[in-house]
C-alpha cells in the first residue's frame, strides 16, 4: 500500500498528520469501485496500525479514536474538497457516511474485544493485524455469499424492481442469471440525482439480463407488474431497518401497500448500532430543505443560473439517504444468511454486548 506516500501529504487537521493521513488513505481506497465503504474504513485502520508509532497501548488506542474521527469527517467530502482549507470545503451530501460509521464501529469493537489479553503493544498490534487480515478476507467473500443466498429468492419468470445501483444487488442478479441460469426481468429506478441506475441497466444488459430503467417517480406505476423488490443498503440499523439511497423509503412504502415482498441485500459489516426514530434522526447531513431556509435562496439563485446548476443545487439541498423502518422490509439477505429484521438486532447484540 502507498502508505509512505500518503504520509507525506499534508492536510488533515484533526489528528497527528506527521505519521499517517487517514483521510487521504480513505479516499484512495475508495477509488476502487469494488470496495465497499466499511471495508475501506477497516483497511485504513489496518494501514494505520502498520505505521503507528504510539509508545503505549493507551496512546495507541487514543490515536485509533482520532483516526476514526478523521475518517468520519473525511467521509463527508470528496477527495478534492478535503484538500481545501476547512472553511472553503463543500460537503458532498452523497457520500456514504453511514457505511463509514459502520466500519468505524466495527473496528472499534474489534479492537475492544482483542485488547484485553495483551499488555505488550507490539503483540497487540501483531494480533490485530493478523486477525484483521482474516476479517478482510471474509469481508471480500461476503458479496459472493450473499449472491448465493439471495439468488434463491429469484425464481424463473420473476420481474424484479431494483433501486438504483447497488453492488450487492448486482452480484445477486448476476449470480442468478449467469450461474443458476434463471430467467427473469429487471426494472431499475433511475436513482436521481446520481442516476446510478443507468449504470446498473447497462451492466445488466451487458450480461444479457433483460432490463429497463424507470423514473424514480414511476415506481408506483410499475410496481403492479413486479414480483419482488431488491434494494441495497448503506447501513442496517439496530431494529432491522435500513438506511439507503434516497427513494428507498418511498419504494418500500409502495411495495408494502401493494403487498409485494421487498428484500434488503446487505453485507453484515454494514450493520451499525444506530436506532433512528424517523427520517430526521440520522447521523448524516440533514439537508437544509428540511428547514426550508435554503430553499428560497437556491431558487433565487436558480433564476440567474443555468439549468444544470439549478438541478445541482436541488440535489445538494436534498438528502442523499433515507431511513426505511423494518416493518416495510420483508427479509434481509446477508452473508450471515437470511435474516428477519428482528434477527439483525440479535446479531448486533451478540457483537456489541
Amino acid at each position, binding site marked *: 500500500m502507498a502508505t509512505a506516500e500518503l504520509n507525506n501529504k499534508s492536510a488533515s487537521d484533526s489528528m497527528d498528520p506527521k505519521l499517517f493521513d487517514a483521510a487521504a488513505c480513505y479516499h484512495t481506497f475508495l477509488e476502487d469501485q469494488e470496495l465497499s465503504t466499511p471495508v475501506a474504513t477497516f483497511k485504513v485502520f489496518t494501514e494505520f496500525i502498520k505505521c503507528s508509532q504510539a509508545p503505549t497501548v493507551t496512546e495507541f488506542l487514543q490515536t485509533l479514536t482520532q483516526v476514526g474521527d478523521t475518517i468520519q469527517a473525511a467521509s463527508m467530502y470528496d477527495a478534492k474538497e478535503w484538500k481545501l482549507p476547512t472553511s472553503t470545503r463543500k460537503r458532498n451530501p452523497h457520500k456514504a457516511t453511514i457505511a463509514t460509521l459502520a466500519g468505524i464501529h466495527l473496528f472499534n469493537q474489534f479492537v475492544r474485544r*482483542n485488547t484485553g*489479553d495483551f499488555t505488550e503493544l507490539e503483540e497487540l498490534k501483531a494480533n490485530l493485524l493478523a*486477525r484483521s487480515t482474516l*476479517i478482510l478476507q471474509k*469481508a471480500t467473500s461476503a458479496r459472493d455469499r450473499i449472491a448465493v443466498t439471495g439468488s434463491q429468492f429469484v425464481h424463473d419468470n420473476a420481474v424484479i424492481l431494483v433501486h438504483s445501483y447497488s453492488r450487492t444487488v448486482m452480484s445477486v442478479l448476476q449470480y442468478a442469471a449467469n450461474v443458476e441460469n434463471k430467467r427473469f426481468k429487471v426494472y431499475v429506478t433511475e436513482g436521481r440525482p446520481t442516476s446510478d441506475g443507468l449504470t446498473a441497466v447497462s451492466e445488466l444488459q451487458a450480461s444479457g439480463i433483460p432490463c429497463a430503467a424507470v423514473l424514480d417517480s414511476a415506481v408506483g406505476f410499475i410496481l403492479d407488474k413486479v414480483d419482488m423488490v431488491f434494494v441495497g443498503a448503506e447501513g442496517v440499523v439496530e431494529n432491522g431497518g435500513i438506511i439507503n439511497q434516497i427513494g428507498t423509503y418511498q419504494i418500500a412504502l409502495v411495495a408494502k401497500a401493494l403487498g409485494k415482498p421487498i428484500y434488503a441485500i446487505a453485507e453484515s459489516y454494514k450493520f451499525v448500532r444506530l436506532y433512528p426514530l424517523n427520517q430526521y434522526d440520522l447521523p448524516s447531513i440533514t439537508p437544509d430543505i428540511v428547514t426550508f431556509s435554503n430553499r428560497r435562496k437556491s431558487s433565487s439563485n436558480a433564476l440567474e443560473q443555468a439549468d444544470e446548476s439549478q438541478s445541482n443545487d436541488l440535489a445538494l439541498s436534498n438528502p442523499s439517504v433515507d431511513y426505511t423502518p423494518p416493518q416495510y422490509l420483508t427479509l434481509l439477505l446477508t452473508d450471515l444468511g437470511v435474516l*428477519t429484521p428482528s434477527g439483525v438486532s440479535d446479531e448486533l447484540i*451478540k457483537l456489541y454486548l
Partner: protein
Amino acid sequence: MVLSKALESQVEDFISRLKRRQIVGSYEVAKETAIILRQVVSTTRWSDASVLVHVITDLGRRLVAAQPKELAVGNIVRRVLKIIREVVRGELETDDIMNSGTSEDSDGFSQDSEDDADSDREFKSILAQDTEDTDHTPRPEIPQRPKLQTESSMFNLLVDKNSEDIDYSAKSYNMKPLIIQEINEEIIADLETVYKGIADQALEHIHANEVIMTIGYSRTVKDFLTKAAAKRSFQVIVAETSPTLQGQAMAASLAEVGIETTVITDSAIHAVMSRVNKVVLGAHAVLANGGLVAVTGSQMVAAAAKHHTTPVLVCTALYKLSPLFPYDVDLFNVCVTPEHVLSFNEGTLIDKVNVLNPYYDFVAPELVNLFVHNLGSAPPSYVYRLINDNYDLEDTTL
C-alpha cells in the same frame, strides 16, 4: 459409507412410503425419521464423528428428496446432526457432555441457552475452518458445502481469542452411546411429549366463554382445546375444510369431549369471524420467517381474522420449525388428486378444465400473532431464533 443391509431396506421402504404419500403428517414422519437415524448411529460403523455426520447428511438428503414437502424429515435430520456436533464438542472441550447437551434444549430461550448457541457458532466456525484447512487426515471427505454455509459471522472472528485446532475426527469410544442417548431423550422422547407440552399452556391463552375458530384436523390443536375445556367453558367454530372435510372430523372429536362445537362451511369463515375472538391453527411446518405451511384454507382464516383484528395463535411442535425460507410460496405446496374437487364422474368436463386441489396453504408471518410450541410461546419475529437454537446453521442446506 454404506448402511447395513437390513437398515438399507428399511430406509428404502420409508422412502417409498414418503414418495407415495402413504405416510403423511409431520408427527409420523418425524418419528420414523428419528428412529431410522438412531439406528444409523447405532449400527453403522463409524470411527469418528465426521464420518457419522457425512452418513447422516447423505441419508438425510435422500429422505428429503423423497418427499420435499414433508419438512419434518429435514428438521429431524438437522436435529440429529446438531446433537452429534454438540456431543463432539462436549467430548473435546470438557468431559461433561450431559450438562452442556441437555441444559440447552430443556430451556430453549434463557440467557444461558443464548450463550450456548453463541459458543456453538464459534465451534462451528472452528469446524468449518478446520475442514477447510486440514488436509492431513485420511478420513472421508466432509460433504462439500456451498460457501455460505461455512458459518458466517465476522463477529465470530472478532470474538475468537485464538484459533485452537479442534480435531473433528478425534476418536472417541463413548460418543456413540451418548449420541444415541441424546437422540432418545432430545428427539424421540420430545416427540412423545409435544402434545402435552403445548396443551399445558392452553389455560394461558383461552379465557372463559371465548369463541374460538379453527380449521382442519390437528391433534395439537385438539389436545390444546381439550385441555382448556377441562377447566373453562368456551365454544369452538370449526371450518369444515373442504374437500377433505378434516374439519368435520375435528368437530366431531371436539364435541365428543364435551366442547360446544359448531361446524361451518369454509365459505362462512368471513361471515362468522365477527363472532370469533381467537383463532387457533395447527401447522404442517413453520418456516424461518415465521410463516407457516398449513392445511389449505388456513390463509383464508388468518386473513379474515386479520381484517377483524382477531388474534391468531398457531400451535406447533418445535420439530415443525424449518430453517428454510419461503423462497417461492408455492414451493412447499403439493397438489393432490382433483377428484375430490370435481368428481371423475364429470368426465367430459374434467377433460377441459384445469382443476387444482392444493393440499397446503402458506400463511404469511404478518397474519400470525403467536406461536405456541412445546416449550413456550413466541411471536413470529422470534421464530428465527428458535431455529438457531434447534439447528446448526451449517445444516440449513442438507
